[in-house]
């Protein structure tokens, strides 16, 4: 089963994929209105808001947790390599 390279969500059916296209590597939530994959900042913003909403976390804690999980995702490897340099 494919996992979204940007947020890690498992994509089981065509409708989970960006543009409903199973050939793409990112999910419907990580897609911009024009169909391209969202940026690092957009993804970070969405996931932090999701954590604050679903678990009521302190925002700074959510930022740290999102950072830890984004570090493990294929889409952001180049971003972190750049950042850690």
């Amino acid at each position: 089963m494919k996992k979204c390279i940007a947020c890690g969500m498992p994509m089981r059916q065509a409708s989970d994929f960006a543009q409903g296209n199973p050939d793409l590597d990112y999910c419907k939530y990580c897609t911009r209105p024009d169909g391209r994959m969202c940026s690092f900042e957009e993804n970070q913003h969405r996931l932090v808001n999701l954590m604050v909403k679903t678990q009521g976390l302190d925002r700074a804690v959510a930022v740290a947790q999102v950072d830890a999980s984004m570090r493990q995702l294929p889409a952001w490897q180049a971003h972190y390599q750049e950042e850690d340099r």
Partner: protein
Amino acid sequence: MPNQRQLQKSQTRAKVVDVAMQVYAEQNLSTSTLAVAKAAHVSHGTIFAHFPTKDDLLIAMVQQVCTPLVTATDAATSLPDFLQQHIAVLTKYEALYRRFISEQDALPAAAKQVLVAAQATVAVHFQAALATTSVKSIAPGLLFNTWQGLVQYYLLNSEQFAPTGSVLARYGDTLIDTFERLIS
């Protein structure tokens, strides 16, 4: 296709994790891996061949519990279904999960990260299940934390509610029913 040797290797690894989960369910997380070797009837060296450090073994155990938690709650079709799936997996791993939450400081950072990530995903699944029903107008995070708090209170104080046997097997249905009535 994996050859005989690889197959045997992955079977041994699975057996070590399985036995370790039983050992640490019964004894606290500071117990040495030697106890796992004895219980699994393998040499201490065999444990190290698969898990170079005790932390590696703890991470594997946490993953073994978190994977079904995430998968089962993802498949939930309604809020009652979510609550039942959540309780079912926690009941299966009750004693070990209790140690994970009560002895968190004994877990390596990487294992805590697995727990935190799983918790976040379960919370998202909770919210998806919530959307299928009409509930009181309360922030989703607080609803999730209320459920979580109820379950963990019973888990952490099980000796007061179920001195023998599984506290979730005994009270799981009551907790689900109560929570549903509280929020609807």
